[in-house]
């Protein structure tokens, strides 16, 4: 017969695993969302909401990392559709955070910003699926996690990665050699 203590133990166990999972998985999810959206603030919001939903679920999904990405992708898509929801106090002056890199002085900052802008431009030429695939892999997600998160066959992830990497390299070479 279950003791009255059991439900609390289950909750404690879930919370303990949730805390560990958060420490392990929040940073890469946030970085993934930040890179895919180009908007660190939106990424923070979406990553938070995703983890709030995971906590409210009360149990870990079968593949929690893939579950997170899948939910986060849906939330991000919704947020981007209603972009006007973004809050921004605008009257005069600079409104867009563009702090890519900090050390190295203004010249190094400029180079980093130029490169980031170039990379963003290259990603924009690719399909959403290719962008997700490359960035998820870059963040250390396994083939299995990527497959579940993006709804593709695990055996196809290698093929998709090869194609996406080649497409990225071609587009990057073409843009970086193009006259500005």
């Amino acid at each position, binding site marked *: 017969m279950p003791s009255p203590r059991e439900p609390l133990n289950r909750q404690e166990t879930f*919370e303990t695993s*949730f*805390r560990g999972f*958060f420490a392990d998985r*929040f*940073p890469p999810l*946030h*970085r993934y969302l*930040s*890179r895919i959206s*180009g908007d*660190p*603030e939106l*990424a*923070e*919001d979406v*990553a*938070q909401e995703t*983890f*709030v939903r995971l*906590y*409210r679920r009360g149990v870990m999904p079968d593949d929690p990392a893939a579950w997170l990405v899948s939910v986060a992708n849906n939330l991000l898509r919704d947020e981007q559709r209603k972009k*006007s*929801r*973004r*809050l*921004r*106090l*605008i*009257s*005069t*002056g*600079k*409104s867009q*955070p*563009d*702090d*890519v*890199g900090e050390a190295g002085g203004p010249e190094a900052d400029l180079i*980093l910003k130029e*490169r*980031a802008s170039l*990379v*963003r431009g*290259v990603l924009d030429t690719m399909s959403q699926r290719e962008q997700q695939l*490359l*960035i998820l*892999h*870059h963040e250390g997600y*396994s*083939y299995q996690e990527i497959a579940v998160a993006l709804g593709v066959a695990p055996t196809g992830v*290698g*093929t998709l*990665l*090869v194609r996406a*990497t*080649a497409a*990225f*390299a071609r587009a*990057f070479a073409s843009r970086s050699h193009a006259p500005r």
Partner: protein
Amino acid sequence: MHPDRPRWRAYLDSEMEADEIADLERHLKDCGVCGLVAAELQSDKVSVAEMLGSLEGPASVTTVEDILQSARRPASGRWALIAAMILLGFVTVAGATIATGAFQTIVERIRRPPSADTLEKSPVPDQSPALTGIALETAGTAEIIFLSSQVNGTLTITEGDRSNVDIVATATVPYTVRSGRVTIVNAGTSADYRIIFPRGLHRALVRVADRVLFSRDGSVVRAAVKPDSTGQYVVSLSSSFN
């Protein structure tokens, strides 16, 4: 028969079982063509990783306690409502008219310099060209996060007899409001800020990057500096705090 590119890619990504790795490595020993393919794939992989690395943004400021607090709170939508009101306020700044009372308050603060009582003892210079701010209704708790330290800039924290949290800045700075938290995207800016919490607010927190500068939990107040003779906490937003 040569393994195809996806197999080599899986090999490079360590996404293979040990026996398959052994097979490929045996093949690689005797096959110059596959050696070139693997080298090319590895080179592309490294290049793409370097490029994607350049998209690094600010680190997250979220803690697991933030998530737990938010997840346990009933989804009242209160802050979402406030956020929507402020958003409408921004539209209004661009020229439309205002509909509701609470809304009016917020927009007026954005449009004009704060009233004399707000400016009293304020570090904000008089010549500030675009003093901006927000007023936020709270449900007993408020958290203000500055994502970065600044090269210049002063933060003044005080309490006043009011029902809203007021945040006033000397420059226009983007921010978001979510789940009882205001996140100010201040990287690369140098504004001065003044935060006025309602007197008696149960819980308040002000953080710059990962450093808590001020917190109130009931009657317990912790701050990075002592209050001045007028009871205000005046702290620098410079990197010396990191």
